[in-house]
């Protein structure tokens, strides 16, 4: 390793898997390599230390275009590794000064990686997002008498307030109905999964949709349960008018790289 190169870590896989590198290019367009240490293999790439040094990288990461390209490249390498066996995906921009640092990691945390790999073996992550159209939901829920306003001594101002309140009430019942749907969808999908994670709803600027995202979840599904899981997702889409359920995947098990209950912060070092 020359001084001008830095090692970018993509994922950790089993050492007994096919240990030839995946045929994809990495974040710097580099050839991806593998480093095997005992029962584990790290998928890495050598990148220019000047372009990927901490200071430069910090600036790059603030640039959404650069970030998007790097994120796609990182994901492509992780996905290529996942296509050949169980993987533990590593977060974007994990850098080592040399291969030795990566080997040391594999030796030092062998048990952690092996249990993480065992937990995802034969399973894939599927993303399920549920959306509702707020207008159609509010319309379907608002009772006809909500528009009925008592007239007489109250005056126009009170009538206005009453309308406002009715509108607000309709919106609130739409929100609680949406929350209820989300919980029910999750409750029905969970029994088909080995594990699940609930993520915060995404920003509409990322989704490009104005509908409310009421559920953003990840499910770790056994390969032999993929078919029933998909069938249930399809069924849930038909469940309510105004409800849309989006399935993404299969993903490498990003959401399940950290065992449930472990604090990500504890993993440093």
């Amino acid at each position, binding site marked *: 390793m020359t001084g001008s190169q830095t090692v970018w*870590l993509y994922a*950790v896989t089993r050492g007994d898997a096919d240990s030839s590198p*995946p045929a*994809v290019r990495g974040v710097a367009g580099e050839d991806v390599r593998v480093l095997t240490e005992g029962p584990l293999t790290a998928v890495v790439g050598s990148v220019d230390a000047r372009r990927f040094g*901490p*200071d430069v*990288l*910090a600036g790059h*990461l603030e640039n959404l275009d650069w*970030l*998007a390209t790097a*994120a*796609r490249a*990182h*994901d492509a390498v992780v*996905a*290529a590794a996942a296509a050949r*066996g169980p993987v533990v*995906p*590593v*977060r*974007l*921009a*994990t*850098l080592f000064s*040399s291969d030795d*640092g990566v080997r040391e990691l594999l030796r030092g945390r062998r048990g952690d990686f092996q249990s993480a790999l065992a937990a995802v073996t034969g399973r*894939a992550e599927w993303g399920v997002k549920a959306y509702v159209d*707020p207008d159609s939901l509010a319309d379907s829920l608002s009772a006809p008498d909500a528009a009925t306003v008592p007239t007489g001594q109250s*005056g126009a*101002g009170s009538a*206005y307030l009453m309308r406002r309140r009715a509108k607000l009430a309709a919106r609130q019942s739409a929100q609680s109905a949406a*929350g209820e749907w989300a*919980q029910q969808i999750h409750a029905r999908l969970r029994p088909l999964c080995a594990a699940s994670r609930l*993520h*915060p*709803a*995404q*920003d*509409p*600027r*990322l989704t490009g949709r104005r509908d*409310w995202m*009421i559920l953003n979840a990840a499910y770790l599904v056994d*390969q032999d349960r*993929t078919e029933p899981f998909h069938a249930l*997702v*399809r069924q849930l889409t038909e469940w309510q008018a105004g409800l*849309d*359920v989006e*399935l*993404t995947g*299969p*993903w490498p098990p*990003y959401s399940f790289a*950290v065992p449930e209950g472990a*604090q*990500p912060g504890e*993993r*440093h070092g």
Partner: protein
Amino acid sequence: MTLAPDPFGSGLGGGQAQSADRATNLGDILERVLDKGLVIAGDIRVNLLDIELLTIKLRLVIASLETAKEVGIDWWEHDPWLRGDAERRELAQKERGRRELTAAEQTQEQGQRAHEEAEEEPEPRRARRGKNS
């Protein structure tokens, strides 16, 4: 059901499911590679990197949370399955949300008082619910 790009691709029906050429929504990818995946401190000085990464992550995640708050979809806050840093962010957001709510209630009361004082005004002027963060 909306099928996000190639969900069933080569994966349906067993075998190794992952396909390398998924044309996937950028938000989904960013969410996973920045916010999920195993956190490992490499031996390169990453402290600065962590800080910078965090700013992006927070920008994306907080934006998401604010949107969720606006539409009142926050049930996962009470979900025992949600753990880790998301929960800590949620707590911070919850506190902030509480402050916003109080401000919104005050605004509403002011709006009603203004209305009572000027009964003939058809549309009482109401301050927009502000984000006082």
